[in-house]
């Protein structure tokens, strides 16, 4: 039986990187159908149709599916579920909201943040902030799961799948979208960036945090932050890297003024090369850093930015 992959669409645009990496993770399970939902998603559906390994795009263009509201979106997925053994999506805020709801409606368990698909019913996923990796086999007939995309390489865009318009239940009476407060930036997206520069409590203030952004811009990098930096208001919530924030695995991760709590490491320890700048030589971040610089960030960071 086929795989139904719920695609992320943000503001009418396909989240291509997330979807293409999820495709890479699940393509061994069978024919993959992509579900694109939301009014005005025509362009996203067309982009989805070009991804390699997609055999069909289902496009549900009802207004009720806009803004990723969980109740109508889950009802739509459930209405299609009969034809699929696997129902999945990238482990994004959107799918983490919708897919557990889908699973419960189907009376099956959900597996979130899957890092490897072993076979049709066996999956690997991290637990305890990544301190352990579990291999689990599900007895459910339908498998509902989200994929942690950081460790997969995106499929290419040389395909040409048909797009089929569909409709489904579209009751929008339970919740209403009011507003998105989304900052747009020219920087690469955190979860797909090749380089990430992150700042922590060590920065001391929102003004000082600009130092991190300057270095990131010099490197063409995305900006990340520790929970402490976000809680203190130095950085917005969507920059948080860690157990309960975003999981990244760039070629280069630079941690500045971050101690290296296990909850932070959970979000970045699979990066290829890790650099840490911290004035405390005992900071746990140095245990995972390939290159550690024990220094005051207020002198080291401007110097680094200047010399690059």
């Amino acid at each position, binding site marked *: 039986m086929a795989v139904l992959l719920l695609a992320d669409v*943000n503001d009418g645009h396909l989240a291509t990187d997330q979807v293409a990496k999820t495709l890479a993770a699940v393509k061994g399970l069978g024919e993959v159908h992509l579900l694109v939902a939301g009014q005005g998603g025509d362009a996203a559906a067309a982009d989805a149709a070009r991804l390699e390994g997609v055999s069909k795009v289902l496009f549900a263009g009802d207004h009720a599916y806009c803004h990723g509201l969980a*109740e109508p979106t889950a009802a739509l997925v459930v209405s299609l579920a009969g034809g699929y053994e696997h129902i999945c999506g990238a482990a994004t805020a959107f799918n983490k909201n919708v897919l557990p709801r889908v699973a419960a409606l189907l009376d099956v368990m959900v597996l979130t943040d899957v890092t490897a698909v072993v076979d049709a019913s066996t999956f690997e996923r991290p637990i*305890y902030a990544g301190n352990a*990796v579990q*291999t*689990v086999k599900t007895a459910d007939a339908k498998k509902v799961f989200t994929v942690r995309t950081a460790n997969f390489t995106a499929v290419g865009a040389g395909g040409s799948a048909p797009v089929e318009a569909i409709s489904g239940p579209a009751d929008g009476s339970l919740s209403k979208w009011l507003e*998105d*407060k989304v900052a747009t930036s020219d920087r690469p997206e955190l979860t797909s960036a090749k380089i990430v520069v992150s700042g922590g409590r060590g920065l001391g203030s929102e003004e000082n945090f600009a130092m991190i952004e300057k270095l990131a811009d010099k490197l063409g990098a995305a900006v990340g932050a520790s929970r402490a930096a976000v809680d203190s208001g130095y950085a917005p919530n969507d920059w948080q890297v860690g157990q*309960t924030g975003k999981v990244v695995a760039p070629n280069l991760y630079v941690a500045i003024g971050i101690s290296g709590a296990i909850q932070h490491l959970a979000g970045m320890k699979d990066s290829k090369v890790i650099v840490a700048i911290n004035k405390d030589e005992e900071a746990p971040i140095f245990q995972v850093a390939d*290159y550690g610089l024990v220094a005051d960030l207020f002198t080291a960071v401007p110097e680094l930015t200047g010399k690059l």
Partner: protein
Amino acid sequence: MKVLVPVKRVIDYNVKVRVKADGSGVDLANVKMSMNPFDEIAVEEAIRLKEKGLATEVVVVSIGVKQAQETLRNALAMGADRAILIEATADVHQDIEPLAVAKLLAAVVKEEGPGLVLCGKQAIDNDLNATGQMLAALLGWAQGTFVSEVALDGDAAKVTREVDGGLQQISVKLPAVLTVDLRLNEPRYASLPNIMKAKAKPLATKTPADYGVDVSPRLTVIKTAEPAGRKAGVKVGSVDELIAKLKDEAGVI
């Protein structure tokens, strides 16, 4: 309006987790256990609603081993009014799956009739992030997940959600299930007098059979392994040396 808060007993977030050598799981014998940090935030929010006169009663529920009593007493000491313990297993290593937890919570909701359920966003042991969404599904209710702000507004709640691109504001019809994120509030510590008072607050003990719910797992854990470690790196002496290493040795800039 009654508010229901499910609280889970989990390994304390400061404890270094150890995977058992035989790959059968994580060692939970004699380690410090605490209330799931997100659930403390949920309890705090419920108590604040009561303090503002928006909630009439705060009921906390925990599902698991009998020691989860301690977690419930902790919530009572923070200010919850009443607790329900559903003893679902005697084995500290058995995690009751979110689907089963959601079914039990749905049964409790039917009995108690709360106007709002405040769950944590995720349990820091299994990291599943699923129970609140599953409960909302089983009840046919609206859900507001990963919330960092809640404002009750008649028969709806206006919530701010932490999403990938920033924040999203939605309005959910009540009754609803909300799952709380880190920045919703800072939970209070229980004072000594309140810890004493909590001992006298009602705590009912139930079993899954009382609710007619089958909690047998759908998942079989085949193996629990340590993640691949990183090999120790080097300390560099200067910014110049760092740049040279990144360029010549690692080739990442």
